[in-house]
């Protein structure tokens, strides 16, 4: 019989490119479409509540850091904090919504950027929840005893999709498209990393479980790149990429009509975990929830309260408003700052929740604060 080990999250790191950018400065970085300020920006920002964020492009929309470089910087921060050398890493699990290249996998580019020799590699491709998918695979490799040290890195470079020139490339008859602008004022860049080990190190987090529930079979696509508004065909089905771009098939789009489902499915998954006794409401000391905008925070609270399953509001932690929504990197960036600023005590439980709107995947993780020296 194979032994099953515990997996511990023993270090975290992050990288946020450049200075914090406030709401008035956003368009200086992303550019003004045809030189005009956006008419939707104020409304969308008021709803998501984000005050500052970071961009890996400069004011001329030139790339300052590749996605893999941001990931590598976060990983180095993570390793530095616990004094580990890169040569000690046995596995790299990487997550992103969009790498610098279409192929090969993001993990390969990240591995090269970090100069990590001889590792086992995994690239999890998806949107916000892909970081927890990568984390689960790495944690399982540790639990099975295949590896003793694994690095999980999540990195996002969304601002490339939001350059004014992307919208200027649309066919001149295209018209306004709220769904294609919605995320322009919500997503930003950054990377987070976590180290997993088979033994605790100082004050760290034991992974109790990671679970996810995907509902792509029951819902249309809600967040996408690769198909035009009302379009069925893939960007690759156009005769040329230029035509795909002109048709709006390369814009990052959110079908806002479907967003309420994300709240319901997020709560549904939580009720499912309660029913299967994987967690109890009263045992949760801290909630780290990747809600994409402030608008959804109150909706989640309402639904949880109606169910009688609300974790008191003071136990919810987020850094969304200062660090921005960095897609799959958000949960790691949140975890990193939470551990540094809140210093949770041994015995406390940290519940993480990442609902992804792409085609509705919700991921959850329960962590137990432990102390190796206790």
């Amino acid at each position, binding site marked *: 019989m194979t032994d099953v080990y515990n997996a511990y999250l023993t270090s975290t790191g992050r990288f946020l490119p450049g200075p914090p950018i406030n709401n008035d400065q956003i368009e200086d970085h992303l550019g003004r479409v045809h030189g005009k300020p956006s008419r939707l920006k104020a409304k969308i920002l008021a709803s998501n509540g984000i005050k500052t964020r970071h961009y890996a492009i400069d004011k001329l929309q030139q790339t300052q850091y590749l996605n893999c470089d941001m990931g590598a910087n976060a990983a180095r921060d993570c390793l530095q904090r616990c004094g580990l050398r890169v040569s000690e890493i046995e596995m790299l699990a990487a997550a992103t919504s969009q790498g610098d290249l279409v192929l090969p996998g993001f993990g390969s580019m990240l591995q090269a950027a970090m100069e990590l020799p001889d590792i086992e590699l995994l690239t999890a491709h998806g949107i916000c929840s892909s970081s927890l998918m990568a984390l689960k695979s790495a944690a399982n490799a540790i639990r099975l005893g295949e590896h003793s040290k694994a690095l999980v890195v999540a990195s996002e470079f969304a601002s490339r999709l939001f350059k004014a020139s992307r919208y200027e490339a649309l066919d001149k008859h295209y018209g306004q498209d709220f769904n294609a602008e919605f995320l322009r004022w919500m997503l930003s860049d950054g990377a987070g990393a976590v180290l997993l080990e088979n033994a605790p190190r100082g004050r760290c987090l034991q992974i109790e479980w990671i679970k996810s529930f995907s*509902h792509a079979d029951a819902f*249309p696509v809600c967040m996408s790149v690769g198909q035009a508004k009302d379009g069925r065909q893939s960007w690759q089905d156009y005769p040329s990429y230029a035509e795909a771009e002109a048709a709006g098939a390369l814009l990052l789009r959110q079908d806002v009509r479907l967003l309420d489902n994300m709240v319901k499915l997020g709560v549904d998954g939580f009720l499912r975990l309660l029913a299967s006794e994987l967690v109890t409401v009263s045992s949760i000391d801290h909630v780290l929830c990747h809600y994409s905008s402030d608008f959804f925070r109150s909706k989640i609270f309402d639904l949880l*309260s109606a169910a009688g399953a609300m974790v008191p509001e003071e136990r919810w932690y987020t850094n969304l408003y200062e660090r921005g929504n960095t897609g799959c990197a958000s949960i790691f960036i949140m975890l990193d700052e939470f551990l540094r600023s809140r210093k949770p005590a041994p015995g406390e439980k940290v519940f993480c929740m990442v609902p992804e709107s792409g085609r509705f995947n919700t991921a959850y993780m329960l962590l137990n604060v432990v102390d190796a020296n206790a």
Partner: protein
Amino acid sequence: MHKTMDNAEAQQCLQSLMRVWFDFERRLNRVPIIQRLENGEFTQQDYLSLLLNLRQQVIEGSRWITRSASSFDRHYSEIRSQVINHAKDEHRDYLLLEQDFVALGGDLAAIQAGARNIGSEALHGYLMYRASRPNPVDMIGAMWMIEGLGEKMASNWADRIDELIALGGEKTCFLRYHGHNDASHLETFCHMLDSVCRESTTHRAIVKTAQVVARLYCMQLDEIDG
């Protein structure tokens, strides 16, 4: 809405009912006609078929509710009042449905002469059978689903149908009719659940009835393409 329930069994039951509802929404989205609605391929013919098929169950809708009301004895007078209120909302809504059908160009004689499809038959039969039993507290589960459907039709399907086949809101009166969209409705429901659901057997019965209604309702919509 934020009021916590007094008894834990009722609170557990509400959580179970919420899960049944969320599962039902996913099941509905897998039914071909609703899949077309969600994917944006829903046509005027689809809408006519939807109304035609719904009408045969809707016209009987108030019967199972009034039957339930009459099956409660004096020990359940509070819940009986709630059920009677519910029946008042329902008992002539099929007239709106027929108006929408005719406004769309459908033939009134055809919809009035329509027969229940297999799913409607099963749903109606099941509801009447459960409602006829003494003190059928499990009908709370059926009411949960039917009220939820009213909300969903009003807040979700009606707008989507208007958006896809440009009806301007005038031919979706039936779908919009049951949208209460207020917290007091849920509060009333929770109060009823709180007073009735005190044992796990009651909890299980309520949830089971909700689940059966969910399945049979999907069957009813499945049969539109059947």
